């Protein structure tokens, strides 16, 4: 800010106050917000489409608009296999999120807090799953299950999802661990807290926002995964796999209902989280 003042003075003193750049900057001043608004609208088009067509009074094919109805929202589970697939997605998402979050959090703590050998090899092992295309991860696991003779089903889907979620948990939680003041845990130890007490009463609560963010990310990744699931699910359907199979003959509107409901729920969670964070920040600002 301080350096801008003499610059402005120079500008005024110069002989040709060229109007062109100023006009351009004013144009850019409204150009960027308009562009952003249009780009975000563009991002939301398919979401709006999915939501609107969940109210379509359609037959088996949900393509042309036939009129408004709430029927599809009330008869979601009448579509054969849909609610089962949705239930499988929730089950897989919850189990793999819990396992991946636990394993990933421990790794994140170790990476920030401790020194150990083979550090770069471990970092590479954590980075590679994120740099590998899903189709390779899926085919690799499927090849392994084939060699071992493991029958594909819910268990193999959960094993696969946990695998690709771990690295994302590590990255998310690691940032939180790094911002933690070690003096707080030291104080706990100085007050004769046992290692377990220090962990559960000091470290864990302080890490909780990071862990929660990692868990939400894991669940979202697992819930929306199709490619890896397709290779390792056998005859079991998840919600995305149901959509993929149905896409060949036409998607029933009930699929739009579930997707819209999940979308609304997720938006509510995000908004509540943001509002509560803003409220906490305000409270902290007031205290200090």
């Amino acid at each position, binding site marked *: 800010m301080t350096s801008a003042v003499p610059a402005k003075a120079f500008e005024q003193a110069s002989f040709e106050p060229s109007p062109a750049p100023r006009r351009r900057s004013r144009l850019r001043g409204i150009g960027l*917000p308009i562009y*952003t608004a249009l780009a975000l609208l563009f991002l939301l088009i398919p979401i709006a489409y999915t939501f609107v067509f969940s109210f379509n009074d359609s037959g088996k094919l949900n393509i042309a608009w036939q009129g408004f109805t709430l029927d599809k929202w009330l008869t979601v589970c009448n579509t054969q296999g849909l609610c089962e697939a949705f239930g499988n997605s929730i089950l897989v998402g919850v189990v793999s999120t819990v396992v991946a979050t636990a394993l990933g959090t421990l790794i994140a703590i170790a990476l920030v807090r401790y020194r*150990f050998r083979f550090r770069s090899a471990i970092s590479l092992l954590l980075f590679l799953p994120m740099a590998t295309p899903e*189709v390779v991860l899926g085919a690799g696991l499927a090849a392994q299950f084939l060699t071992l003779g493991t029958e594909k089903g819910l268990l193999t889907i959960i094993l696969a999802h946990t695998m690709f979620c771990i690295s994302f948990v590590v990255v998310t939680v690691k940032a939180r661990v790094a911002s933690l003041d070690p003096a707080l845990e030291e104080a706990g130890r100085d007050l004769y807290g046992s290692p377990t007490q220090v962990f559960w009463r000091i470290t864990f609560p302080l890490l909780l926002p990071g862990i929660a963010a990692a868990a939400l990310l894991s669940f979202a990744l697992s819930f929306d995964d199709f490619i890896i699931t397709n290779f390792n699910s056998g005859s079991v359907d998840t919600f995305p796999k149901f959509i993929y199979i149905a896409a060949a003959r036409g998607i029933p509107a009930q699929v739009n209902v579930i997707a819209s409901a999940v979308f609304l729920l997720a938006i509510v969670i995000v908004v509540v989280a943001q509002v509560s964070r803003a409220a906490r920040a305000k409270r902290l600002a007031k205290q200090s």
Partner: protein
Amino acid sequence: MAFTAFSSQAVVEQAPRKRSFIALVLLLPGILYLVLFFLAPLISLVITSFQQPVLDGDVGEYTAGFQWQNYTDAMGEYWPLVLRAFGFAIIATVLALIISYPIAYFIGVKARRWPLLQSLLLTLVIAPFFISFLLRTLAWKQIMSDEGPIVQFLKTVAILPSDGHLTGTTFSVIFGLTYNFIPFMTLPLYATLERLDLRYIEAGADLYASPFTVFRKVTIPLSMPGIVSGTLLTFIPAAGDYINASRDFLGSSSTAMVGNAIEANFLVLQNYPIAAALSIVLMAVILIIVGIYVRRSGTEDLI
């Protein structure tokens, strides 16, 4: 601190060993999991890619071997799909970067003064994550279908010939890939631009650099970490994607990418060695490209 002074000697002696023991306990379960379900599968993929068919065996029966021919067969048949996958992925990544940068710049820099607006806009950027990727792609298929509004409009203004289509074309596949990965590009860009120190930009302007020069010489280099992670998060999944290019979604048989060939060979034809060989080729090319790219852009600390 006084409490630990009593036992300080014992602590000092034990500390290093105890520390590495704790680290081992923390790391072991997760690392073991990744070894079993990430590393081992990659190795079995390599082994599978060299397998040979069982003599007089059923479809899908293979035995250990060293059939290098699988690779030449796979590439001989599918090299156009491999090239297409990387071509499409590169174009989609560049388009996503061009589209996302201004969005991220506005949210991260211009909207800084209004935190509420900032978090609202960010929520809108991540909103597509909350609805199935497959459904979003299918929604575009419907919107771009022959009876849909876009095709009708393009036909009346004669941009598209009267027998033209949008779905099933190279255009629609690249469109779908670009659309689907814009949030993956925008978020890392936002994360770096949000921390951008505006004094550097002011300094550039003070030194009489034009806005364009400031952007090129100051803003872009400072946002390089975001550009690198955004392009990787877009390019890698886009190169392996087979949904957008699939016939039931935005593609047709003439837009198939290497992912489509891997899926078809593994899950339909049960030709596992060819699918495995294609996967290894895809992974190897990606690792080479990513390695060169990361080294050249000078941000190697990714995790």
